[in-house]
């Protein structure tokens, strides 16, 4: 068992809105080891992206508040670093790929300028060595003619190519941790596969630990060893990916899995849904947030919050988990 490269303990986030302060992330903890892949799954608005931004220290200070015991990257607590020290970690030890490749790159600089400036910032060296590293990173990310790509501007590339360029930028310093926030959501299926393949390559080639954030269980399943299930700002289940799909223990996870549309000629048009709707975060139910939509709810679920119960590697926050 290798050492964890990303550890988060007791992270809570509040968001100020015109209707008052509301909690969007509630006391979550997890860790990822080197070379491991962890999926963070949940419906949109459940706090996944907020968690990712908090790890990098990118939450807007004006309308968010955060409480956290520690966020350690390669054993160093990010919360204890000053601005200069934190900038040395960002992009070097931990990098991020964003959901919207269309807007994540600066439109008035070339792809080459943007990637090589990351290299020069963290590794240093001459302009030529940065350019060589840029070409190499692009080539490894699957571009056939990197010397042409470095001269293009973002708007000249397709969404998938922009996302691949983002991955080349994120991997140029061989970071220990890569956070990928819905990296394939805006892209079509064949491009999705390309992106997943590149993330897999990063893991095997550089031992990069990956935190893959997605609402799409199929994407998570294709890449991740471990899965965290998140609902309304809380973690509900944490387990091995294969086990989650074979024997989910939290009713919400089970519901999510049963909602995956099955492409099967035998069962055309079959699709399941979870009854009810995701509650708005200004008006969360007491106790277990999922209790109003759960068919296994008992009184206790609405009165107190279930904590994680460990059953080997399988953790679940539920009073009446599935067997």
């Amino acid at each position, binding site marked *: 068992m290798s050492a964890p490269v990303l550890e988060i303990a007791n992270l809570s986030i509040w968001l100020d809105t015109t209707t008052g302060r509301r909690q969007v992330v509630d006391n979550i903890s997890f860790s990822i080891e080197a070379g491991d892949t962890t999926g963070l799954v949940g419906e949109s608005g459940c706090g996944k992206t907020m968690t990712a931004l908090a790890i*990098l220290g*990118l939450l807007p200070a*004006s309308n968010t508040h955060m409480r956290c015991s520690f966020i350690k990257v390669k054993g160093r607590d990010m919360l204890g670093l000053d601005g200069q020290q*934190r*900038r*040395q*970690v*960002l*992009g*070097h030890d931990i*990098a*991020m790929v*964003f959901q*919207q490749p269309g*807007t*994540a*790159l*600066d*439109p*008035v*600089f070339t792809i080459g300028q943007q990637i090589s*400036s*990351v290299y020069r*910032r*963290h590794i240093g060296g001459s302009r030529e060595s940065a350019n060589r590293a840029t070409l190499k990173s692009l080539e490894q990310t699957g571009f056939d003619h990197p010397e042409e790509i470095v001269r293009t*501007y973002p*708007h*000249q590339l397709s969404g998938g190519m922009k996302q691949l360029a*983002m991955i080349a*930028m*994120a991997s140029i310093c061989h970071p220990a941790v890569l956070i990928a926030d819905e990296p394939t959501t805006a892209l079509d299926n064949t491009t999705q596969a390309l992106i997943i393949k590149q993330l897999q390559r990063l893991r095997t080639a550089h031992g990069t630990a990956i935190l893959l954030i997605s609402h799409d269980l199929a994407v998570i399943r294709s890449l991740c060893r471990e899965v965290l299930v998140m609902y309304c700002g809380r973690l509900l289940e944490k387990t091995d990916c294969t086990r989650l799909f074979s024997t989910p223990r939290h009713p919400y996870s089970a519901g999510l899995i049963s909602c995956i549309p099955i492409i099967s000629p035998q069962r055309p048009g079959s699709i399941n849904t979870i009854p009810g709707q995701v509650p708005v975060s200004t008006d969360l139910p007491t106790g277990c947030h999922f209790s109003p939509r759960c068919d296994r709810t008992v009184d206790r679920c609405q009165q107190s919050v279930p904590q994680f119960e460990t059953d080997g590697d399988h953790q679940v926050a539920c009073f009446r988990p599935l067997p």
Partner: protein
Amino acid sequence: MKEISFITRRLLYGIVLVVGVTFISFLLMVYFGPDKTFELIGKNPTSQQIAEVRQSLGYDRPFLLRYVDYLFELGTLDLGLSDTSGEPVESVLARSLPISIALVVPGFILGNLLGLGFALFAAWNRGRWPDKLIMGASVMGMSISFLVIIIVLQVFLCTPYGLNIFPVRGWQVHDFSSYLHYVSVPTLALVLVTLGYNTRFYRAVMVEEIARDHIRTLRAFGASSFEILFRHVLKNSLIPVLTRVMFSVPFVLISGSLLLESFFGIPGIGLVTFNAITSGDQPILKAVVGLTGVLFVMALTLNDLLYGVVDPRVESS
């Protein structure tokens, strides 16, 4: 190929605008302008005398021909004689324009640079006290009339009621120190009157740029505030900034100098225009209005063409 069609489209639109601008100034200044017939002839003229004068003034020519005449005057810079001094209009303009440029350029540059600096500082500290202080001062600046600023500066800097270190009126410029002597107070006035507007406008641009997704990407990759502000935010906001600078050139040059020069008695294009307004000197006015309109359209067209150089996105759209 794309670039050529973009350039021709812009140039064509520029020509269409020039037609409009010159047509309006023709309509207002020449066609509906004052009839000079009776100023030129004595009492109790015969109808034949009236007809002769009208013919010599070109009043009997068809509407469109008179417009074409006006276009020719502007195009060849053969603008006739001033009603008041009898001097050729083009030589009046040639003499006064350099003075106006020398008068407003320092204030114009300072006002924009300071505005840009304050805006960057405010936007970066958005919501905190430096932002509030700068924005509050800007609103106050916007609430003070140009005329009030000029009067206050004149009293405090140019009269015995204040420091009395600068001249009240005039423009006796023969070397750099005398230039500074005469240009300081108008420059200060110009900076004060434009600073509030510039700062607010540039801050809005910066705030929008700082909120963009790619700025978050830069932060996620460890870019410093300095690099984000001065490399990325500034380059991305170059287009709105350049546009504003371009658009305000004729405003500052004409409107700014109109007030500054008439107030400080500086013999630039503004004072010439002011005198033409008060004395009804039509040849001067129609030349100034027509030429500034044309110059403005040229600046606008040049600005749009420059976009293509600055912004890689333009050519594709």
